């Protein structure tokens, strides 16, 4: 399959996954802030950091209050990380892929895009927001279902899985990075009920709370949450799980040796981390390093499979 086609497929998957993750995260944050006493405006600032869009947000001269942040992350077409921008980018990529993606997938994505654009304005206020965000997650999952039920397991599919899993691993590491920075009194976590609900909220941001309880049968605690989200072998949004999925996919692709090496390095790094012992600064360093590993996997995929500069032959 054409190098440019698989690149567009990879990005299509990343943009859709990004929109869905963003919807989950905003939903969980809105929810947890309702439970925190005197939740102040600054609690929304980390959301900007998670998406790496501080510079863009500052450029607008906005305050990091709920209204501005939610508007910026959901509905601002000029913020490349916003849900509407991600969906727009996903649809533009899909437009270049119409010959390879099943009609059912195209129609669902098209519907998804139109529905969000039609409803985003009324969906921003708190009382409508859950519904809007839920529609986004449901639409994204309908898209995943349409792909799953109708797309052949060919090269395009392989790059769909690579994009989806890379974006998931990336998002999980970012959420941990930013939210744990907020929870500075890590050692006292067990004593603090608000600390507890914040870790629950981290899990919920990744739709992982229920599966965490099922797998760990233990109260929510920092080291366990970290272990679950970084290393669990069964939860589809844990970093280790996503990396393993990518390893399976790449095992079937030609010329994959270098990317596979970077995946092995990332997996070993996660497996070797001593999560119970790390204090907050060490955790930050660990997550920063993990993000570098994920970045290296992305760069390896791009260098191996995506189009090189135009007019350069082998």
């Amino acid at each position: 399959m054409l190098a440019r086609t698989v690149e567009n497929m990879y990005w299509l998957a990343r943009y859709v996954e990004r929109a869905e993750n963003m919807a989950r995260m905003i939903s969980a944050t809105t929810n947890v802030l309702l439970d925190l006493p005197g939740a102040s405006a600054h609690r929304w600032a980390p959301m900007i950091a998670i998406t790496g869009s501080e510079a863009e947000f500052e450029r607008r001269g906005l305050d990091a209050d709920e209204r501005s942040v939610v508007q910026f992350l959901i509905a601002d077409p000029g913020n490349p990380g916003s849900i509407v921008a991600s969906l727009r980018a996903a649809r533009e990529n899909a437009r270049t892929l119409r010959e390879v993606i099943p009609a059912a997938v195209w129609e669902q994505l098209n519907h998804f895009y139109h529905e969000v654009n039609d409803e985003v304005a009324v969906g921003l206020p708190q009382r409508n927001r859950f519904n809007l965000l839920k529609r986004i997650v449901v639409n994204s999952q309908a898209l995943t279902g349409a792909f799953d039920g109708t797309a052949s397991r060919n090269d395009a599919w392989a790059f769909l899985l690579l994009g989806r899993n890379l974006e998931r691993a990336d998002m999980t590491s970012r959420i941990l990075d930013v939210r744990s920075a907020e929870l500075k009194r890590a050692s006292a976590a067990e004593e603090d009920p608000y600390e507890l609900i914040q870790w629950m909220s981290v899990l919920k941001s990744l739709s992982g709370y229920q599966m965490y309880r099922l797998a760990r049968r233990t109260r929510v605690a920092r080291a366990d949450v970290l272990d679950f989200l970084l290393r669990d072998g069964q939860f589809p949004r844990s970093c280790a799980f996503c990396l393993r999925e990518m390893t399976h996919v790449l095992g079937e692709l030609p010329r994959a040796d270098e990317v596979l090496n970077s995946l092995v390095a990332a997996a070993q790094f996660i497996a070797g981390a001593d999560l119970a012992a790390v204090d907050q600064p060490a955790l930050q360093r660990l997550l920063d390093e993990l993000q570098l590993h994920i970045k290296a996997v992305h760069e390896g995929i791009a260098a191996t499979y995506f189009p090189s500069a135009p007019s350069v032959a082998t």
Partner: protein
Amino acid sequence: MQIDWSKYSSASTFDELVGPECRARAGGDALMRHVSELGGEELRQRQQAAEVAIRAMGITFTVYHEQGGSIDRAWPLDILPRTIARREWERIDLGLRQRVRALNLFIDDVYHEQRIVRDGIFPGELIATSKNFRPMCRGIAPPHRVWAHICGSDLVRGSDGTVYVLEDNLRVPSGVSYMLENRAVIKRVFPELFQRAAILPVDDYASRLYDMLASMSPRQGERPEVVVLTPGIYNSAYFEHAYLAGQMGCELVEGRDLVVQDDDCVYMQTIRGWTRVDVIYRRIDDEFLDPEVFRKDSTLGVAGLMRAWSKGNVALANAPGAGVADDKLVYTYVPEMIRYYLGEDAILPNVPSWRCREPGELEHVLAHLGELVVKPVDGSGGYGMLMGPSATPQEREQFARSLRAAPRDFIAQPVVALSTVPTLVADGIEPRHVDLRPFILSGPSPYVTTGGLTRVALRRGSLVVNSSQGGGSKDTWIVDTEA
């Protein structure tokens, strides 16, 4: 609201559905009855359903806008179809095959012996002065000696009922995907009519197109690698490029995906490395195909492509240089070509045309500018024309100056009062003018689409059917009245 056909009046033009005394023309019976039964309210609901389906299916076309860049717009489709009786269509089908055969023989002759010039039928200087003549194509023999593999000819019907050929698009004609998608939508809208009337299917175009392209492969015996070459997502016909590639199961490539290597073969960059390409259905104009030969600044094409093509290492559809016959002055000679190459009379007439380069005809055109349509010979999309009857005196004067300065560049025709088809409007049904673009494939055996793309001028009285200028479209039904 009831639909009362006795109030439907198409004045002096020929209506495709409603004949004299409000009786349906051949093939239109079931439709006319069904429309009256449904009534205006129900029709409007079905029109809305069609529009929802078009949006959901993402059937779009792209319009360039000076301020807004390019805009993706929903494809405009009027749900009331245009009907043609099968018996009449068969004659048109024969006429189109005849015409395209002669055109291909002409193009091949132009790039070889030019017998038609030697024999005094066609003036040689028209070739040299044609903007689409490509000297580097001389002596080349493309597969099957066919140059215009895909042709879209525009047909119009005058007020006396005669079907004329208005022009032949031999470069990169577009619209066939909309013909196919219109049918898909209308089948959702009027399923009961498809059960009741014998409407011939249109679905096999993509597989015919693929078979034709595959037959051109230079590596016979192996599974050919056929690709569709698009200028990219901002091209007005991008939807169609992606649609056809998808329907044929081919890669949709851009110039930057392809490279001509030292062996003068074309390769595309895949995740498994460089793969050889055998046939390119190119949707890029000649001028942009190869920066080594044509426009140096083209980033859409592939350097060395003409080299690969002239050595026979890759097949191109349509062949470079085929546009030499896509010149409205050349068009005026098609009936002579048919007589010369095939020894037959043209089945489908041209619209009567004046050749402004011939002094006597120029004088006639200048004297009758107020009644004529004057067209640039290399124009398309309805741009750069003078519509005599509606032009201001200043516009006419300006055009007269252009005509005297460059008579080779223009032809003139009488205004054809395009036939009409009942069309849904705000308060009922009114006649609107239409044309028809069938598509003709020329490979080892020729193929003509069943019907074609009907374009409709949605404004009352307007004759402009181009979608970029407020035109819409209709499904086209070839109805078997004897089934």
